[in-house]
């Protein structure tokens, strides 16, 4: 039987329309053999949570450049939890223009990985492989 594929939802919450970073990450995860559900720009927290639910995502990755991450990411997390998605089971990470001093707060919120400017896609792939919860 074919092995289970890692399924990742990549989403951009909020109003900034710059999705180059998200696309680069999506593409490298694809090239690493994962199935990437790319949802596009200007997603509301509810849309992201619905995508994570309907796609039964193993991993959710958020990209943001607008600076509103401390505003929007908790709302995404809440919308996911409302739908029974537990950050202890589903792996959450985020990236974009996020200053170092915000990392601890995001990690506390349930984002196991935070990737700021200059991050290497290889590190993200490694992070996913290391932390994703694979079914028995």
């Amino acid at each position, binding site marked *: 039987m*074919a092995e289970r594929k890692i399924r990742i939802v990549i989403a951009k919450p909020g109003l900034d329309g710059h999705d180059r970073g998200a696309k680069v990450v999506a593409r490298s995860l694809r090239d690493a053999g994962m199935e990437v559900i790319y949802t596009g720009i200007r997603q509301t927290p*509810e849309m992201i949570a619905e995508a994570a639910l309907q*796609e039964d995502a193993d991993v959710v990755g958020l990209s943001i450049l607008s600076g509103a991450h401390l505003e929007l990411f908790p709302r995404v997390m809440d919308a996911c939890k409302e*739908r029974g998605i537990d950050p202890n089971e589903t792996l959450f990470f985020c990236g974009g223009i996020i200053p170092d001093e915000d990392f601890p707060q995001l990690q506390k919120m349930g984002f196991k990985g935070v990737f700021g400017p200059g991050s290497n896609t290889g590190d993200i792939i490694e992070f996913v492989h290391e932390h994703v919860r694979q079914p028995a």
Partner: protein
Amino acid sequence: MTADSPSPTLEERLLEGDRRALARLLTEVEAGSARGLAAMKVLYPHTGRAQTIGVTGSPGAGKSTVTNEMAKAYRARGKTVGIVAIDPSSPFTQGAILGDRVRMQELTADSGIFLRSLASRGSLGGLSEGSMDVILVMDAFGKDVILIETVGAGQDEVEIAGTALTTVLVNTPGMGDDIQAMKAGIMEIADVFAVNKADLPGADIVVAQISALLSLSTADGWDPPIVKVTATEAEGIEELVDACDQHHAYLVESGAIAESEANRARRQIVALARRRLLAQLIDHSGGQDRLDELVTAVAERKLDPHSAVDQWIGG
């Protein structure tokens, strides 16, 4: 909850409308896992109620946009909708970018729609191996209409016709010669033709070409209608949905639906048996190593492919 009432199974939760249970079981049946096979045994008796509609056509024809608009039209008619959207897997890394949600973003706010993206996982024919079970599970969940958007299809990706009850083929203007080329393959499977991007010049030519093609058809019973659509403006969608409903009504009233169901069942049984037999063969005939030896011998021209199979299975 008391000790002697165990927590409900995923199947029970699914049948009661729990979307998280649906999502979980879709993953299991798609993978063909033992859990998924167990779920199919429980859920299969609950299937057979949904109206299934395949949407196929060339890459860029507008399948996602048409599917998106059809989903909204069915919702407006009070139907619940499941969508199965299939995109190709990379033949090299087996990874995939599943991008159909981008064009269906507005559907996400409606809890009466459940959209699942699938990667083709190396399967040819426009569907994926697990897609039939995915459709059945959405059917068991109680979706009234299930729209299946295939991988961008060329000429020979006709598998959808044996899977969905109604097949919509999305054509566009500007592909004149391709339409001629498609005559023998995919053009034959359409129950409904959608000519999308009908605001572009040449749409009437496409309609005329399809009509000419259909006039040569000797099949009796159902005459596939041709519907002009501009999906980005939602124009022609009501007519398209009407045409799909009329086809479904025709299947039911004529009794042809029994034949469609039998075709679907036969295809799935044969596909599953083929997969299992191949796995058993590899297991019982020296494993993957033995196959690799034969592959090398054939690639190096030391053995012809037919003799290799003789040696593998026994002539």
